[in-house]
């Protein structure tokens, strides 16, 4: 895995990108997206359910290529399906909405897998890193359980810990607060804030965060940037003040329909 100083180069740069759906590439979820995200930013993309936020995130993660347009990651073309530039692609991590854990592996094995695979380590060699993330995500009691034995709240945390195992510079998190109880929501908000500020265990390095949400209000805060994806249109809003002032009916609709949440 390569790590480098990327302060001057945008972490994500999309020019006229049109993104399709994972299931059907002919189904367009976002048209002509122009988006530049600097390294270290914390961006929240809002949108109603079914507007294609997850598919747009999958395109950003390089799981599916853009239908058209140019997508650059840290100044280079996004290495989609390019085996010899895998290291560059691993600068970007993805946390799925449902965790998407490997059901035949235990929680520890799920978290260890990316590190073991890419660095050719035994389970014992990967154990210290796994233990650190288990403790950080409060997953130690579940270490030897399989995902089927856990609730959805905890499965999502395992997905986060697994994505962090390779220490990505950009982390894409798909709808982290969906379906969580208040305690877990608070944990996620704190955990992502910590990642954005540069946690000690990550060498103080801030992680660039892109989060999708169907309710923007829990995410208001300083240094957060907001965008909305509705009806195939990706609209960049900027700070929370801009969100509240936006005359765009799609943004207003999103705020008006969002259920009350903790701030």
């Amino acid at each position, binding site marked *: 895995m390569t790590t480098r100083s990327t302060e001057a180069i945008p972490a994500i740069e999309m020019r006229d990108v049109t993104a399709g759906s*994972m*299931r059907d590439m002919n189904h367009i979820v976002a048209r002509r997206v122009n988006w530049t995200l600097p390294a270290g930013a914390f961006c929240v993309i809002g949108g109603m359910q079914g507007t294609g936020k997850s598919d747009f995130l*999958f395109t950003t*993660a390089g*799981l599916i290529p853009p239908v058209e347009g140019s997508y650059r990651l840290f100044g280079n073309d996004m290495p989609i399906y390019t*085996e010899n530039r*895998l290291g560059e*692609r*691993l600068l970007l*991590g*993805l946390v*799925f909405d*449902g965790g*998407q*854990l*490997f*059901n*035949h592996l235990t929680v520890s094995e799920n978290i260890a*897998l*990316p590190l*073991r*695979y*890419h660095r*050719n*380590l*035994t389970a014992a060699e990967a154990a210290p890193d796994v233990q650190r993330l288990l403790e950080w995500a409060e997953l130690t009691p579940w270490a030897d359980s399989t995902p089927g034995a856990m609730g959805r709240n905890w499965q999502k945390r395992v*997905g986060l810990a*697994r*994505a962090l195992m*390779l220490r990505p510079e950009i982390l894409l998190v798909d709808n982290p607060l969906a379906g969580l109880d208040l305690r877990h929501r608070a944990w996620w908000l704190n955990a992502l804030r910590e990642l954005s500020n540069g946690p000690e265990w990550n060498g103080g390095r801030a992680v660039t965060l892109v989060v999708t949400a169907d309710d923007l209000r829990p995410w208001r805060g300083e240094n957060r940037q907001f965008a909305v994806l509705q009806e195939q249109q990706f609209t960049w809003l900027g700070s929370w003040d801009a969100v509240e002032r936006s005359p765009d009916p799609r943004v207003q609709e999103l705020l008006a329909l969002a259920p009350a949440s903790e701030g």
Partner: protein
Amino acid sequence: MQKGSTSTFDSPRVRHLLPLPRSWANYIGRKLIRFLLAVQGLGAFALITLGVLITKFTFARRVVHPLVFQQISRAGLRLLPMFLFIAVALGLVVIGQTVSWLSRVGAIQHPYLGSIMVIVVVRELGPMLAALLVLARIGTANVVELGTARAMGEVEALEALGIDPMHYLVVPRVLGMAFGIFSLTVYLILGALVSGYVWAFLQDVPLRPGDYFSQLAAALSGIDFVLLGVKTLLFGFLIATITCYHGLAQPLRLEEVSYATVRAVAQSVIACVLLDAICIIIYLAA
């Protein structure tokens, strides 16, 4: 064809020339095109599997090699008790029928027992039976496991982590099934040959063990060993490739997994029979 447009095939002259009614021609055409598309997809999947197997053989070996041994155990070692039972039964069936038939035609000394065992068990029934049993026990499980993993988004999760699903999910299954079927075939054949003699002894056939094994040795040739190895390894490769293809290659919903399993079993049986036919031609030509 658009609704309301007139097709070339609708003209009375062309209709008259068609060998089958149009609905039948459409049906056969659709089936043929589906078959060719399936062959194309499977061929591409098999080539990709081979490519990944060769280029990434040593990559992440501490993760992937234990998976290969796990699959060999699953498609080989764990099926051994069942195969030993089948071997004993196979020896009884073949020897029982052969002795009965030879006695009827007056070949009391049974000089052909060894030859018949080699032709029936070593060349044909042993490898084919082993392949079909492993298909039934492990091949179907492959489709269900991989199809469910695909439907639940686990394959996308692997890709997001930069883990090649072909390397992590398919290669261990292909190697495991190839070596599993090869090993089980060897045990099945040995078991059937030994049990065959035991059944012949119990039927009071005047045949000493030395004579029986001399007959077996005389009936076997070098090409038997070569083709046995190649055929069983290819059976495993084909079954694993087809079952993994149907589990992984297409985006699946959970309700489609059972249909994918049925298709995989049917195509695996056809592929094994075709391979067996090719081997028979090679035997006859050699």
